[in-house]
């Protein structure tokens, strides 16, 4: 749920920036870190990377959440979050 929330905020910011940008990556990393998720273990996809005014932009975040029961098993659960916003930059 924390990853979902960060993704939604990132999608809004991506719309405001008009696409993928270092500021967006920094913002998302800060949000994930605040939620206890290591940004280095997360795959971020922004499509399209540059978006026009009123065009949809999608931010997807994928991570692998480690789950383990000591002495029994250890595995990872794939978590995927996506959100769509709209470009707000009139180029």
């Amino acid at each position, binding site marked *: *749920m924390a990853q*979902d*929330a960060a993704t939604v905020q990132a999608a*809004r910011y991506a719309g405001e920036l008009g696409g993928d940008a270092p500021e967006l990556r920094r913002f998302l990393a800060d949000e994930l870190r605040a939620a206890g998720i290591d940004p280095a273990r997360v795959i971020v996809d922004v499509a399209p990377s540059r978006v026009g005014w009123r065009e*949809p932009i999608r931010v997807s975040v994928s991570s692998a959440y480690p789950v383990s029961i000591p002495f029994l098993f250890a595995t990872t659960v794939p978590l995927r979050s996506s*959100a769509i916003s709209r470009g*707000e930059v009139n180029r």
Partner: protein
Amino acid sequence: MSWIRDDRGSVMVLTLVVAPLLLVALAGVLQLGALRVAAARVRAAADLATLVAVNDQDDAELARSGALRLSADAIDVAREYFARELELSSPLLDRAADEIAAGADVAAYASAPAYDTLTGSRYDRPTVRIAADVPVRTPVFGALVLRPVTVLHVVAVSSPR
């Protein structure tokens, strides 16, 4: 009457009785967790859809008077983006995202103050509101309490600042 005090085999009986109950409780808890995640996603979908619709201002009016006024197609934009957002969570939904969005009660209040007859709220800025019933699959509840679909009621409201 020594067999009354004989507890050999009682652990097996206890396990046979308690293990199914524990499994049912575990399944119920997992389903509740999944439902909570689904509810958060649906709420976020509605929030983002109203935000997108509100961000799209009437540019001519903004240039002319500096006033914020909703774009004429705010309702359509909110509905379209609600469908797009729900589509991302389609495996959780019991109906198509388009159908759910089409059935949603979307209202745009272009001028303020305005009163929402559905929620009873007063809006002091131009506002977009979505109210929708979103059916979510809950197969474990279906097996346990014959309720395979749980309907989430969501209301999202956004105004520009």
